[in-house]
């Protein structure tokens, strides 16, 4: 598809470097799906939905900085929604998120609640000022927060919060956040990998499954069309958590 024009309806600041953009298009996305956002004259980047008509963005580079310069009434181009989103399974689910990666999980949790599913959340942030969507997660059910500096909730990484739960109780666990955080969770909960759905990121260029820039070793799985949500047991033997490729295709560290 060609990019469709979309007028930004509202911009909300969630944290110092995180903003939510409400779009005028109803794209009917599933939580975990993404949209390619074209900031004209700058670049096109993939973004996860934080609700049916919002994307929540962390400013990390040239394209997101340019997006942050746009306010209500500005227009962007959209392609999507693309990829495979989360699939709800069972009646008692756990959401595990880190930073801006909590955005698709808040969306998923609200959909799950609407379907009568019991939702528990474990979300982690660097510090108190980085916390986003606390009200949304509180409205879903039980909530445990971690902060790296201990300002709020449990001190430490998200994995520290795992101790609060008996993972056998959950029918499905949904994971999204920085790769090191997700890998930390997956590697500590290997016995549950068959019921963990993780929403991951790779460098997307085409978003149509042809260019190959997002392929995961060793199977060559195309994250842009076969993901971005994968069962964790499929990630355990992959490059995930070890390295990721950059725009030129060379391997780099997988932080962030």
């Amino acid at each position: 598809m060609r990019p469709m024009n979309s007028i930004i309806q509202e911009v909300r600041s969630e944290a110092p470097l995180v903003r939510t953009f409400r779009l005028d298009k109803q794209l009917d996305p599933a939580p975990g799906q993404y949209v390619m956002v074209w900031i004209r004259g700058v670049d096109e980047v993939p973004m996860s939905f934080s609700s049916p008509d919002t994307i929540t963005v962390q400013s990390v580079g040239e394209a997101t900085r340019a997006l942050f310069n746009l306010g209500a009434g500005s227009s962007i181009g959209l392609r999507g929604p693309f990829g495979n989103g989360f699939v709800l399974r069972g009646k008692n689910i756990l959401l595990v998120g880190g930073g801006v990666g909590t955005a698709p999980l808040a969306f998923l949790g609200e959909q799950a609640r609407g379907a009568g599913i019991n939702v528990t959340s474990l979300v982690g942030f660097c510090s108190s000022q980085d916390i986003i969507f606390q009200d949304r997660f509180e409205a879903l059910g039980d909530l445990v927060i971690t902060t790296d500096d201990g300002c709020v909730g449990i001190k430490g990484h998200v994995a520290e919060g795992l101790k609060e739960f008996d993972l056998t109780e959950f029918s499905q666990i949904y994971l999204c956040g920085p790769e090191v955080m997700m890998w930390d969770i997956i590697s500590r909960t290997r016995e549950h990998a068959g019921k963990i759905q993780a929403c991951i990121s790779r460098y997307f260029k085409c978003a149509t499954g042809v260019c190959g820039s997002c392929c995961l070793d060793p199977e060559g799985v195309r994250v842009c069309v076969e993901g971005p949500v994968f069962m964790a047991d499929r990630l355990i033997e992959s490059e995930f958590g070890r390295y990721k490729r950059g725009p030129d295709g060379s391997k780099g560290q997988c932080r962030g």
Partner: protein
Amino acid sequence: MLSLTVHAGGLTLRNPVMLAAGILGTTGASLRRAALAGAGGVVTKSLGSVPREGHPGPTIVQVDCGLLNAMGLPNPSYKKFQEEIDIAKTGGVPVVASIFGSSAEEFAGIARGLDADAFELNLSCPHAEKYGSELGRYPDLVEAVTGAVKAAANAPVWVKLTPNTADIVELGLAAQRGGADAVVAINTLKAMAIDIETGYPILGNRFGGLSGPAIKPVAVRSVYDLALRLDIPVIGVGGVTSWEDAVEMIMAGAWAVQVGTALKKGYGIFEEITLGLTRYLERKSMTLEDIRGMAGRH
């Protein structure tokens, strides 16, 4: 049992349906996956002498009749790619390294530094300054680059030609004079799309190359003309999406075809085309040799 095996351009292919350059060729794993899915051979993403991130997005626009792209030759440099080629080779089919440079010396240097089953010279990318068709539209440069790589490489050399020229046969003859083992036709057609809401060119690079069904008739004509005039094999690429397209391309004179944009449908495309091709040949009681270049004999 009908054989689809082809000996062309210095390679033996178990079937004539290859993965085209630039498609799912960034990693050894995705190349191997194409091989395991049934490709007769695979071509890497084009490799240069230094890392390139490629053009800013959008790098792809889907148009009604195909795909418009301006990736901008992103690659980690050939030096970092040998390990990916080695992984790709475990797929069990020939791995062709697509390479690009801005001079005959640069091409030759890359070919000298890489171990691949063959080289495909990208003298045809339409959207990268100083590379691709900026050299490849001049017959004398095509001949010089081909000759330099032939002298440097210890593997067959294929030359991928641009259709953005008045006479593609001139370019093919130049490649042949340079010693090419085969020519590959065609690369994308230079093209553009504009966002009518704002007037912005959609591609980050403003213009790019058109691939897919829209260019198939152009590719068929190019292959036909080249096959009639050249002594070396022609590999047909451009809009091949079905076994019928493959048959048409072979009837135009292609020894093998390459599939690119159609990978949008998934890796199953290789088996789909080879199976359809096999059934067709069985129904007609003919071989690949029988139909190759048939259009030129009528």
